[in-house]
């Protein structure tokens, strides 16, 4: 397949104004499926988390999972939506082997939540409001594995295998209204929006929110129009963009591709595009056709969902604090400056830092490791930092090793590389690589401990970031060792001990 022509992003932005739209599918983490009592579990043996309902056997009937309804209402409330007084499920009719009944049970013209908004904070602190059209409930499809071709893709496959374990897993689809006015910040906004949705559903506890497992999946709609024109251009829908970085890249790419198509004088084709992480490009999927006549009609095997206002208010009362308030609280708790905190948010490691602190690290140690070490490594590996595989406990252990003077900071970064290479726990790697600091540090460390204990107020100042106060401690150590210690080394050890960067 030949590559599509693209313009540079800057040129595209000079000529055109992007309009975005997102459909984010959130898999709920209920114990059972949307319409059957089979378990909603990821990764089990194929076709074992199913019963007759999930396989669409003759004679079966669906029954709605109450927890899934509650989770959907919570998502709607967190997105500032109205909750429907009454809503129904419909059948979306189409034949596909991953769809056991050959129709998907989904809400159509009566979503459970509608007319909401989400305020998205961009990297420079700008707030951008994204309006939410609706959040509706539906069921997931099974999983197709394409066999026989070289690539494992649908193209060139000889046959496919179907596992229905995922069939019937509850989904909430969140649909935005057209997002206008993002301009050149469209790719950044795209990433920030999906990150915000992910954060919300994770905080609500209604989804495991792991993008790499498909718990949160994004379809990104992009269209361009010449500056000044009101009417929208024809859009493409890029399916299954399943990491935050990919969302940003896909929107970036589609803007450049659309611009080239429009520049050539051709119309944009309204179609589905497939995202390829390896080449960071999209390829043409399926054009909209008359086969898209889904013949929706109200699901006759289900009855209306009528959430009473009391029920909605009960659920509202259980909502955790909104992300903006949470950020404010976390920043205050952790004592980060505005700039430090924004960097953390933009790097997408706020949750990770919170977990690391919860695991026992100090706020400054957690930030040092995530921002100083892990984010950079993730960038090199081209994955989101959370996906690199660093566990909070690993960081706590590393910090402890440094604090105890067993290794120094430089060694600790080496140990981290070892952990990421799968060589074992930090302690094991220290052992294997022979990374322990020379035993000469032993008496020094004792002297440092004594000096810190003698001047606790100074120690606190240093911990609080006033590194210049370190002179008093260094002086104490030099005095205790009668000037035989290396002052530079002493300084390094004190900082490591206190978990402060020099």
């Amino acid at each position, binding site marked *: 397949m030949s590559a599509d022509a693209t313009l540079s992003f800057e040129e595209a932005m000079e000529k055109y104004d992007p309009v975005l739209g997102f459909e984010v599918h959130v898999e709920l983490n209920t114990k059972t499926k949307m319409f059957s009592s089979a378990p909603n579990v990821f990764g089990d043996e194929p076709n074992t988390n199913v*019963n*007759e309902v999930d*396989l*669409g*056997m*003759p*004679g*079966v*009937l*669906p*029954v*709605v999972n109450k927890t899934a309804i509650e989770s959907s209402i919570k998502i709607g409330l967190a997105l500032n939506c109205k909750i429907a007084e009454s809503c129904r499920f419909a*059948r979306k*009719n189409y*034949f596909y*082997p991953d769809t*056991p*009944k*050959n*129709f998907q049970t989904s809400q159509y013209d009566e979503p459970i939540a509608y007319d909401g908004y989400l305020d998205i904070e961009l990297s420079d602190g700008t707030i951008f409001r994204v309006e939410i059209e609706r959040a509706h409930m539906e069921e997931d499809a099974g999983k197709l594995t394409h066999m026989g071709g070289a690539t494992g893709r649908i193209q060139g496959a000889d046959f*496919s295998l*179907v596992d229905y374990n995922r069939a019937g897993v509850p989904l909430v689809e969140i649909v935005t209204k057209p997002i206008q006015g993002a301009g050149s910040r469209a790719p950044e906004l795209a990433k920030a929006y999906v990150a915000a949705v992910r954060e919300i559903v994770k905080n609500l506890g209604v989804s495991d929110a792991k993008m790499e497992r498909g718990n949160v999946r994004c379809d990104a709609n992009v269209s361009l129009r010449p500056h000044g024109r009101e009417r929208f251009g024809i859009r493409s829908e890029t399916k299954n963009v399943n990491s935050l970085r990919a969302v940003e890249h896909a929107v970036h790419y589609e803007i450049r591709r659309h611009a080239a198509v429009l520049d050539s004088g051709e119309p944009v084709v309204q179609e589905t595009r497939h995202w390829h992480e390896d080449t960071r490009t999209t390829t043409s999927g399926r054009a909209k056709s008359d086969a898209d*006549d889904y*013949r*929706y*009609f109200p699901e*006759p*095997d*289900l*009855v209306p969902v009528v959430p009473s206002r009391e029920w909605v208010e009960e659920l509202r009362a259980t909502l955790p604090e909104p992300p903006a308030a949470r950020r404010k609280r976390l920043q205050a708790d952790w004592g980060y400056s505005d700039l430090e905190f924004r960097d953390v948010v933009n790097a997408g490691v706020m949750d990770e830092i919170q977990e690391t602190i919860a695991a026992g690290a100090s706020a400054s140690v957690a930030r040092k490791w995530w921002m100083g070490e892990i984010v950079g490594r993730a960038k090199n590996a081209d994955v989101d930092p959370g996906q690199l595989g660093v566990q909070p406990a690993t960081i706590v252990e590393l910090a402890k090793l440094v604090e105890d003077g067993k290794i120094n900071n430089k060694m600790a970064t080496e140990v981290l590389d070892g952990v990421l290479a799968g060589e074992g726990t930090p302690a094991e790697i220290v052992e294997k690589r022979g990374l322990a600091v020379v035993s000469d540090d032993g008496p020094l460390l004792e002297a440092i401990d004594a000096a810190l204990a003698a001047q606790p107020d100074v120690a606190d100042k240093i911990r609080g970031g006033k590194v210049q106060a370190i002179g008093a401690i260094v002086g104490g150590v030099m005095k205790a060792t009668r000037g035989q210690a290396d002052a530079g080394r002493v300084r390094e050890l004190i900082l490591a001990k206190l978990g402060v960067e020099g």
Partner: protein
Amino acid sequence: MTETNSTQLIRLSAAQLAEKLAAREITSVEVVQAHLDRIAAVDGGERGVNAFLHVNTEEALAVAAEVDAIRAAGGAAAEELHELAGVPIAVKDLIVTIGQPTTAGSKILEGWHSPYDATVVKRLRDAKMPILGKTNLDEFAMGSSTEHSAYGPTRNPWDLDRIPGGSGGGSAAAVAAFEAPLALGTDTGGSIRQPGAVTGTVGVKPTYGSVSRYGAIAMASSLDQIGPVTRTVLDSALLHEVIGGHDPFDSTSLPDPLEDLVAAARLGNVEGMRIGIIKELHGEGYQAGVENRFNDSLELLRQAGAEIVEVSCPNFQYALGAYYLIMPSEASSNLAKFDGVRYGLRVLPEDGPMTIERVMGATRAAGFGDEVKRRIILGTYALSAGYYDAYYGSAQKVRTLVQRDFDAAFTVADVLISPTAPTTAFKLGEKLDDPLAMYLNDVATIPANLAGVPGLSLPGGLADEDGLPVGIQLLAPARQDARLYRVGAVLESLLEVKWGGPLLAQAPSLAASPVVDPAAMLVDAKEAK
């Protein structure tokens, strides 16, 4: 067991069998064996009734033996046995059963065994009622004659050249031919009541939602309802109480506790009750003999102290049209799952690319019969973009109008009455090429399905011109199924006094056929097709 005893046993009603079983005058094994013998004698062969698609000999006898053992041992276990324990039953082959094939009368499910039981089947098993087998039907219950079965038509025991009604012709014929004392049917537009009418048996469509649909292969979800097929009104009430009541596996199942239907059937009193003749459901278009028997019934009810009033349901004229939009629409979606991927038939296209889409298309082309295809295409049309409002949407509005007609009628009448079908049983093949004429058979039964109200058909005598059974239909408000049994039992007893016994006593004897092995019989049935 003597030949005479066996012949007597199969003629007993379920209530009579239950009584004798409880008194240990007879055993369940004897009863089951007598019915298996009858099936072997009359069901197979060139001119057999062909009511059964599968005979469940081994399991039925095992359940019967278990019941007999419990009764013989006595004590608490015997006390706790259900009233109908040991009384055998046949199940329409649209209802799924573990351990027996379920075909829905279609090639597309040939050989399929369900890994789960329908809720009603579970309840039969809980009551320890031996299941004799699975009965024939129009493919996916689509038809009014059982001629649309992929496994050959069922014959009417009153005249083997005539249809037994449909779609549940197998269940009705099995009961009429004394092959089973009880059967289960499903009724979407009359598939229990119309076969009841033309075979001289009793059939009940309960209030929508009062019997679980879980495990009944759906044709039209908002219309389908499982119900009893029997020879007496009391037997229907007894069976209705076994299968009825709330089921958490069916979201449309009513939470209401079941009424005391058996008591209503035993009460038998219509004094002071207002019984409404539906002006639109008799007269023009109804066979003279049907009209005459209908009038006889009115007269008997009047004599018994009922007040006969006339009601008008002007929107019933649109009911048939609305039904033939709603039913195929829902069916087109319900039948999409039959695609050759997960179960049932898979047919490969003869030429061209071998994609899954083509395999689905070839499978459905080969697996479905003409009537099923016709309804799927019609339903696809009624739901398609641009037509939804005019067809499906309008039909759902007519449904409201039909409900309003019923509401108004039930303000002046406690129960409504009409002939069940406009004619007696027609000849096999007579209407096969005229779908529209076939659809008209359901004109009197369809309104109840659209509105969800319960209906009962019972024998009203034989038409003068052809000597074939005529059905009388009673309709009650939703959740008032007990009224049907109360009025039905009175009318039945008055008619039986008039006839000097049950109407089926006048049916021709079928026993002349040679005894055939049930297994061989199934092969015969298929070859006959």
